């Protein structure tokens, strides 16, 4: 076979075929590349951090209003007593200040953090206006750093979800479709080594993974300044391990199914719990402690936790080893069971 080119190796041909079939399917391109970017953009805009808000306080007294305006964190308005009461009830104002020095009355809802903040700011402003001098001089240094925003939390979640969806759907549909069309049976009627057929799915997935990860992360970094604090090779390695574990799961799901409908049902059944539990949109820590070990054993949780630790906290290989271990077990177990069960005809 030395006289035949590398391109004519069956594994290369099978992988190229997978690649072509994927790239010639516009819907698949949309879901794998465009959708996660649109989702990240939409959510990034919806949850962007706004500048610190000023709080509306109202008072019938012109003198008090003047004193309150010296505080930048407050939006003080002078209104009639009736309007003040109405604005407090309707939530337009967080605090009503009435009376006049030396005795003022604060009316507010103490279960509303805004009300409590407004009370503290208003009290300090009135005391300073009345001549209080503070024994300690304080000044502020404001910190609004990337890494602690919602978009920073969201991007690793979306990336993990995307790795799962593209691997499971990519494997599942292609395999079941080939079986349904008897294309798989036709291929095993040739001398094609069967392992090459399955390997071609994994290889094409890993090649597409590079494009997918670069597209999603590139967008997140350029558009939102999402940080990549950890070693990039660890990030890449976790993406590969994650994708392999989802490929294995997809192969297992597709190992015996004959119809697209049955495959869809199984794939959704496998993915739905992970969408909810694995912390794509909110931290999985919010679930009861008793189920957390189970949630951490899910492959999507392992991928997302490792990606977040790497990107946001700068975790290296040692820190994400537990997650890598979880993924390794999924890969070995699912591939082994899938190969045992696999139906070639």
């Amino acid at each position, binding site marked *: *076979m030395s006289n035949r080119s590398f391109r*004519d*190796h*069956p594994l*290369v*041909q*099978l992988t*190229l*075929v997978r690649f*072509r*079939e994927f790239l*010639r*399917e516009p819907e698949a391109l949309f879901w794998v590349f465009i959708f996660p970017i649109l989702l990240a953009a939409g959510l990034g805009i919806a949850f962007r951090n706004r500048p610190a808000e000023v709080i509306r306080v109202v008072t019938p007294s012109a003198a008090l209003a003047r004193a309150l305006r010296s505080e930048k964190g407050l939006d003080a308005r002078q209104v009639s007593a009736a309007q003040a009461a109405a604005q407090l009830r309707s939530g337009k104002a967080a605090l009503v200040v009435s009376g006049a020095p030396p005795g003022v009355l604060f009316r507010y809802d103490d279960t509303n953090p805004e009300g409590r903040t407004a009370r503290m700011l208003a009290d300090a402003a009135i005391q300073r206006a009345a001549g209080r001098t503070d024994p300690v001089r304080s000044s502020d240094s404001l910190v609004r750093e990337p890494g602690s925003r919602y978009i920073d939390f969201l991007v690793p979640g979306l990336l993990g979800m995307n790795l799962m969806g593209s691997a499971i759907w990519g494997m599942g549909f292609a395999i079941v479709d080939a079986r349904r*069309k*008897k*294309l798989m*049976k*036709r291929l*095993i*009627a*040739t*001398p*094609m080594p069967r392992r090459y057929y399955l390997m071609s799915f994994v290889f094409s997935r890993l090649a597409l993974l590079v494009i997918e990860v670069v597209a999603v992360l590139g967008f997140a970094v350029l558009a939102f300044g999402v940080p990549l604090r950890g070693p990039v090779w660890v990030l890449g390695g976790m993406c590969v391990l994650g994708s392999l574990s989802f490929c294995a799961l997809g192969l297992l799901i597709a190992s015996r199914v004959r119809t697209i409908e049955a495959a869809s049902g199984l794939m959704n059944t496998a993915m739905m719990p992970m969408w909810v539990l694995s912390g794509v949109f909110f931290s999985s820590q919010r679930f009861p402690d008793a189920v957390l070990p189970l949630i951490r054993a899910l492959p999507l949780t392992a991928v997302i936790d490792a990606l977040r630790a790497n990107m946001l906290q700068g975790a290296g290989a040692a820190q994400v080893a537990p997650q890598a271990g979880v993924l390794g077990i999924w890969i070995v177990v699912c591939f082994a069971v899938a190969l045992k069960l696999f139906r070639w*005809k």
Partner: protein
Amino acid sequence: MTPPPHPALRVRNLRKAFADATAVDGLDLEVRAGECFGLLGPNGAGKTTTIEICEGLTAADSGQVEVLGLTWATQAGELRQRLGIQLQDTQLSDKLTVTETLRLFRSFFRRGPEVAEVIARVQLEEKAASRVGGLSGGQKQRLALACALAGDPDFLFLDEPTTGLDPQARRQLWDLIERFRASGRTILLTTHYMDEAERLCDRVAIMDHGKTIAQGTPRELIASIGGEHLIEFSAGDATVGLNCEVLSRIEGIRDVRREPGSVRLMVTELHRAVPALLDELTRQHIPLTELRTHSATLEDVFVGLTGRHLRDE
């Protein structure tokens, strides 16, 4: 070239049962090297199961299968390299082009012609860069044949190669199959078209209910039913009163068979039998409403053996 010492295919006492039916029930076959052998039979006769067992795709319950002197149990890898296989209704990937599809298939075989040459052999040069999804039924079938030829096989298996094609596409495919046979290689094909079997096959086995009920060249099989011609006539309601006993004694008539609404006669000498038949019908006062004659075909062999037509559903 001296003929190989073994037949291309030897099948002995083959059996295969599925949960709901026995598909192959004690089948024997022998295909000689270099011949085109046809398995002819109605749908459900067990043709596809038989050919897929020979192709190593389905395991038999019992019996022996030897292909090119090799067995699936011990020499599957070698066999796969030497067989060309076309399955019934495989859908090749619509999104690949003809060239890409064949390049894939070619990559599985150690030897074989260049991709462009295979495309030329099945006359798809103009479609080489077209997507499979845009091909006509006949072109798809020729591509499927090309995939089977990608490894320059010694033995070609074709399962219903022309089912569902229009007459022109069928003739085109027959030409290609004949060309392959002319190169001295062996073919086993299944079909439920008698004209296909008569045109392509050196020898035919007629299958019914998982068994072969007749084997031989198309000419031998046709001769075996005792006449080269058939007469079919109907006489409306008067057919009921017909005395068949008398008809069967007419010179040249070998067999008389009543069918619903008509009568079929197997005839050796048409020129003697027809006048005699007309005289006899006139004598019995039977008014003819229809009279047809044709040369006997494999269909008639099947009808003669089973009382049913090949295409009865």
